[in-house]
């Protein structure tokens, strides 16, 4: 996939310390490539000269020894290359501690990161340690891919895990507004989950479960979704499968709906987790339906999804021989925050039906619509689904209830075949019986959800969103003003010169240097550079601190841009 290359692409601009660093990496890379070339040539020579030897047994031994040595050497070199490329993606974090008040501890750690993109206490991966990297030959090639992909996708998250901002204990820590996590209602959730009804143990909860999920939980989920999705008829618990998280649900769906190399359509920008899940286990391709920010006659709203665009993407994919098995929709959309109207939804589903596509619809933000003028329509609320046997709904508690650590995801599908096939994975994605009980109690407590939780949650979302949008407006930053989700999709194009993904990455790193994590458009496969997603579902104090850092970075960036333009002008 081309996006993966994009992550590793080196910036061309010689800026600050990064230019130097990139140059160094570049030289290093060239050297290693050369070494690799020589090794391969040597290997080839060995192979071709082989028949000249007389003693076959001896030759066989010598040959296999040489081969395994060279295999090891090659493996080592390749691994180093991957390492280098990744450290390139990580960039000069720490080389340029732009926060002057950084204490020594952070400086030291920054220095280590500069050496290796991985955790400083995992010396195995440090470039200098040849012997240690040697062990990578223990992994299968897909194992190496999995590790590498994970590292490149979750670097920011890991840094954050190690050095989290805390208002008292670690004010210099990272603030993570790149992760879409709802931290607004932890007080309410903690209190609710501490109530005595939650703590119930019985034999059944400790025994092998029904792998689709305990019947009591599936019944509750069916009732819950019937109510909150405004379903005309009662949903059937037999159509519910619960697994440990929505990623697991998607992963299993990809397994049972597609064979390797087959594809799903997905409108971009979209939540990067899908790309990750698609290639990690299931090896399914994603065909992007690129959306434009520009408003035109054909595109009345920024990033609007239309059936025409879907159709075009599908036909183009088919022309190249791709087998497209389905369409992925996220509603409310992540990262755009769009909520699809009933008519649009109907249109997309009709399109899918026309081409016999499955529709996987992720409604994980369905209760996180905080603008009272926006009505969310679950696909389950439709009077008659165009193609019920190919419509599969995903929901979970991670976002709407802010309990991402609970690991709970739901599949609702009318298609029993799909439900059964997904259930085969129950073993591998099972949820603890104890947790299933707690979830059941939580979903059951309609009174608390409707009268306490949801009103508070939504009003806090509204306030946080209001604060953030006001700040952005003050800075003159364009953004999509939507009333759902935990994040805002904003356009920082004016801070990029030239407007490229390389510059986007550099700006992203600049935020990191200032201990602020955002997520950049590239990770959502946005085709226009300069877009960022910023999460606002956090405490006011933290948001304030974050926006302070945000402002600082952008002023620095602006300064640099002016300098650069001056230099260019002088040169001309």
């Amino acid at each position, binding site marked *: 996939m081309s996006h993966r290359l994009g992550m590793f692409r080196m910036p061309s601009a010689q800026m600050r310390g990064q230019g130097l660093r990139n140059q160094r990496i570049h030289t290093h890379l060239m050297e290693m490539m050369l070494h690799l070339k020589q090794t391969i040539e040597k290997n080839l020579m060995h192979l071709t000269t082989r028949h000249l030897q007389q003693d076959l047994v001896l030759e066989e031994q010598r040959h296999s020894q040489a081969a395994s040595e060279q295999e090891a050497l090659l493996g080592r070199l390749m691994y180093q290359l991957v390492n280098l490329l990744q450290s390139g993606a990580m960039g000069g974090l720490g080389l340029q501690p732009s926060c002057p008040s950084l204490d020594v501890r952070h400086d030291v750690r920054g220095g280590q990161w500069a050496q290796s993109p991985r955790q400083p206490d*995992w010396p195995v*991966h440090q470039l200098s340690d040849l012997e240690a990297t040697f062990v990578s030959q*223990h*992994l*299968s090639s*897909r*194992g*190496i891919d*999995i*590790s590498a*992909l*994970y*590292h490149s996708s979750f670097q920011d998250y890991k840094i954050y*895990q190690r050095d989290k901002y805390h208002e008292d204990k670690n004010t210099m820590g990272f603030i993570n507004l790149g992760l879409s*996590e709802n*931290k607004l209602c*932890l007080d309410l*959730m903690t209190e609710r*989950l501490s109530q005595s009804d939650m*703590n119930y*143990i*019985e*034999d059944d*909860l*400790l*025994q*092998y*479960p029904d792998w689709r999920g305990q019947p009591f939980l599936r019944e509750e989920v069916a009732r819950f979704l019937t109510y909150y999705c405004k379903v005309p008829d009662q949903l059937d618990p037999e159509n519910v499968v619960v697994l*440990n*998280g929505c990623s*697991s649900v998607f*992963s299993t769906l990809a*397994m*049972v*709906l*597609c*064979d*390797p190399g087959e594809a799903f359509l997905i409108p971009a920008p979209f939540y990067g987790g899908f790309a990750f*899940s698609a290639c990690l*286990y299931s*090896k399914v391709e994603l065909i992007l339906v690129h959306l434009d920010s520009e408003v035109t006659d054909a595109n009345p709203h920024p990033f609007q999804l239309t059936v025409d665009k879907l159709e075009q993407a599908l036909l183009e994919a088919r022309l190249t021989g791709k087998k497209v098995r389905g369409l992925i929709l996220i509603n409310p959309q992540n990262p755009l925050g769009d909520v699809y109207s009933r008519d649009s939804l109907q249109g997309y589903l009709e399109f899918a039906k026309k081409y016999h596509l499955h529709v996987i619809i992720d409604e994980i933000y369905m209760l996180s619509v905080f603008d009272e003028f926006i009505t969310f329509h679950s696909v389950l609320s439709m009077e008659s689904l165009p193609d019920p046997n190919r419509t599969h709904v995903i929901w979970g508690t991670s976002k709407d209830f*802010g*309990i*991402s*650590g*609970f*690991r*709970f995801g739901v599949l609702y599908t009318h298609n029993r*075949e799909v439900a*059964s*096939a997904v259930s*085969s*994975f129950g*073993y*591998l994605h099972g*949820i*603890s*019986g*104890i*947790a299933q009980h707690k979830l059941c109690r939580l979903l059951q407590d309609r009174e608390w959800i409707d009268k306490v939780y949801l009103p508070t949650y939504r009003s806090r979302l509204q306030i946080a969103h209001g604060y953030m949008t006001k700040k952005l407006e003050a800075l003159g930053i364009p953004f999509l003003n939507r009333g759902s989700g935990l994040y805002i999709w904003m356009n920082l194009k004016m801070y990029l010169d030239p407007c490229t993904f390389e510059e986007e990455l550099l700006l992203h790193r600049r935020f990191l240097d200032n201990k602020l994590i955002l997520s950049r458009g590239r990770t959502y496969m946005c085709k226009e550079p300069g877009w960022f997603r910023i999460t606002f579902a956090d405490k006011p104090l933290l948001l304030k601190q974050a926006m302070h850092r945000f402002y600082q970075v952008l002023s620095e960036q602006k300064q640099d841009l002016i300098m650069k333009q001056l230099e260019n002008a002088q040169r001309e």
Partner: protein
Amino acid sequence: MFTLPQKESKAPTTCPGPASTQDLDSNHGDGLERECSRKPDWKLPEFCGVGDPTATASSDSSHLSSRGSIIKWFWDSAEEGYRTYHMDEYDEDKNPSGIINMGTSENKLCFDLLSRRLSQSDMLRVEPSLLQYPDWRGHLFLREEVARFLSFYCKSPAPLKPENVVVLNGCASLFSALATVLCEVGEAFLIPAPYYGAITQHVYLYGGVRLVCVYLDSEVTRLDTRPFQLTVEKLEMALQRANFEGVKVKGLILINPQNPLGDIYSPGELRDYLEFAKRHKLHVMVDEVYMLSVFEKSAGYHSVLSLEGLPDPQRTHVMWATSKDFGMSGLRFGTLYTENRDVATAVASLCRYHGLSGLVQYQMAQLLRDRDWINQVYLPENHARLKAAHTYVAGELRALGIPFLGRGAGFFIWVDLRKYLPEATFKEEMLLWRRFLDNKVLLSCGKAFQCKEPGWFRLVFSDKAHRLCLGMQRVRQVLEGKSQVPDDPASCQSQESGNQRSGGETPPAVL
């Protein structure tokens, strides 16, 4: 890619020698998979009788991918015995004539102790960090506790390190993740058979990895001093044969204490197996999920982690879970210990899909930390109860003159019912299994463990006395030909017509 490797076409389908490759051969999938391996287009086989996959898979397969149909077949066939059981579960009061489950390896002897412990106030802590996205390897506090726990109970020479620990939702996930990061699709692990059959599914579903059986014999000879003894020679032969057939073997799975044999490997044997693996650069996955369920002190259990100087520490990966030793199969907690950081990292990369709830992680840490309760209350009581139950069942079997294995570990006895088969075929084994089920007792038959000799059954004894007593009574009735429920001639007939080969039947799933 998930397509079946071309290698398989080379594999002989006749004459399964001592090390014939199990083409994703499973506890349930034998006929199906073998058939599939011959047909590159993944058409499901014509296959009738028990757990007929064509009935469901071909009905509307347009909705599922090819691999999806196979995956679904696992579910459908796994359901077979258990669907019958779940529809008619024994209950002392409500359904006294219901089915007694002596097939699932679960410890039901200590719920009282466990529920009391898990209900104590220290278990009930809820804090925000437990509700948020975790460290995918498992919360640090839990990994630290696991390291301490394993250091102590495995008697490791040096303290184990938390950074070598990865926590996920059960050993099934661990098998799946290890298969994925250690093997390419179509590569294989060696496994001594009979073995816990579900592993086939675990390594296959996502990983597309197959198991190569190292078949063990019940017969005692000059070389094999005990029945089903694993020797390095057998490992070597199985490996050679797999190589010969073009199957690339990447590792060896050992279960210690063994399931279903209840066997325990001596430190000397363990070291031999590990040396064998080292010679051939094989990874060794040691599943020690029954390590604290050794109720006979004389059995002398040794964890692989207790060995001084592992032959190949970078290729030795240890698995443990609370499912068996703490009788909590529903809790879904499993852990990997490996000194190989690359493997740990790669497995952790998959933990996004195999995570367990933060609150449960906290409870597990509390449980593992409570050494007083474990050592003074739980383990002595658990072992005493296991021993009593074992003694009872063993006594019953002796009275019936039935040979069996059971070496003081695990929840089961490996029972030799060969003399009750009119013919030594898996078809007869299946018929006997069905007679047990018809007489309302669920057992697991040897085929489900890939045992190569028909007529072996695994009998789980870790249940309450009254259920055990009733279960044994029903077993006896069947063996003495006094079943209360007459055989259903119709069901027998449909099986006969559908199964030309003795191996083509669907044995019950094994948990």
